[in-house]
């Protein structure tokens, strides 16, 4: 449909051809393909960006669609057709309520320490809960906090984004409202000096938007 580049003159294939190539590569993979990897597999000098946009448009409204997951791309079946795929459903272990809440807290507050998760939930987070999320590869260790004890932080992964159909952590449902309502603030208990991360609160929040993969 698009023959932007003049065929023959350049070593880089015309857009239409790049689109076919990107389509073939993404179709062949069951996991998202990083845009950089995509570029590496195309003929030298070819940039997949334009082809991806064209392809995404082409598949709009089709039975499969092209979605973005962080820096990666993947074809997925259209969500409204899920009922036809009953045969393909993988039985997954049901997550406990604690695990689901912990996952949400990590996603919305990332990077977040275990202590902070416990503060938000008001109970201890069991080892097993975090392990389960790590095992699912929905959560991984982030950078250590530069506070006493240098606690590890948790962040969500590309796998998490892929599983829940999110382009980035910025697209978490209701994130903006929660932030506007101050509910993602790391507000310490008044007068309690045990957790001195006053300045930290701000960095945490900014980090969510700047460091996210």
């Amino acid at each position, binding site marked *: 449909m698009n023959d932007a580049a003049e065929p023959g003159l350049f070593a880089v294939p015309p857009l239409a051809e790049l689109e076919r190539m990107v389509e073939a590569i993404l179709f062949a993979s069951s996991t998202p393909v990083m845009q950089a990897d995509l570029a590496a597999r195309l003929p030298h000098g070819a940039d997949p960006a334009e082809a991806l946009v064209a392809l995404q448009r082409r598949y709009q409204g089709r039975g499969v669609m092209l979605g973005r997951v962080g820096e990666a791309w993947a074809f997925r079946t259209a969500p409204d057709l899920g009922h036809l795929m009953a045969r393909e459903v*993988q039985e997954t272990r049901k997550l406990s309520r*604690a695990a689901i809440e912990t996952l*949400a807290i990590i996603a919305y507050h990332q990077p977040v320490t275990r202590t902070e998760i416990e503060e938000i939930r*008001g109970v201890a987070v069991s080892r097993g809960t975090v392990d389960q999320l790590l095992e699912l590869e929905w959560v991984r260790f982030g950078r250590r906090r530069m506070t006493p004890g240098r606690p590890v932080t948790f962040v969500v992964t590309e796998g998490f984004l892929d599983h829940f159909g999110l382009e980035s952590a910025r697209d*978490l449902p209701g994130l903006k*409202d929660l932030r506007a309502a101050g509910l993602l603030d790391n507000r310490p208990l*008044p007068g309690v000096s045990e957790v001195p991360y006053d300045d930290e609160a701000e960095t945490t929040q900014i980090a969510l938007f700047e460091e996210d993969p």
Partner: protein
Amino acid sequence: MPDDWDDAATTTPAERQASEALIVDVDGFEGPLDLLLMLSRTQKVDLRRISIVHLADQYLAFVARAQSVRLELAADYLVMAAWLAYLKSRLLLPPDPAEEGPSAADLAAHLAFQLARLEAMREASARLMARDQLGRDVFARGQPETLTARRHVTYTATLLDLMRAYARIRTKDEFRPYVMDRDNIYTMEQALDRMRGLIGHVGQWTDLASFLPEGWGTHPMRRRSATAAHFAAVLELAKRGQVDLRQSATFAPIHLRARSPE
């Protein structure tokens, strides 16, 4: 979040009853904060506008009921009860300007914030789980094509690697623990067996060295081992009275002959 700030403050008797009718079942709650959140929902207001005094009453009533049916409450529930009782008393009194630390209003506001935040995270997790999920609502390619890797491996090694490897082999040879070197070891048992067979033929004084088996006389390590084994063997035979030994001087050759039966 519903924005019904106005009908905040009070609760109806019906709602109060509902909260009191709560089944006393601590197992259903994940800690005091979870219980507080559950109780606070009966107030049906924005959590940030909740009456903490009333909430404290609800909580204390719950704890009292639990204790009246002799339900074992975990310590953190009791700590929360004590703290709420204290907070309530401070909230009801006029603020004492002499008192240090955060005001009762600040503490109450923080508790309200914690409840709102927990509730927000509950809602967020519900919304998250309601999304189309991969492998449940949305599916990946079922028959992915494997990416065949055409590998071009270049092997490298430096001269230093080569020399280190060689040094390793040679030095390993020298340092090899003695017991490993079975090939070059002649045991006393072997020597004893051998000497028993030979001893009958030795009527003359004969140098022990001449008894060494073939192939054990030249290689230094083998010779040492065989000599030691045979020496030990003839000592044993001498002890049993089967041979006589003599040595003219220290380090001189050892001679032996069969002892004639008496």
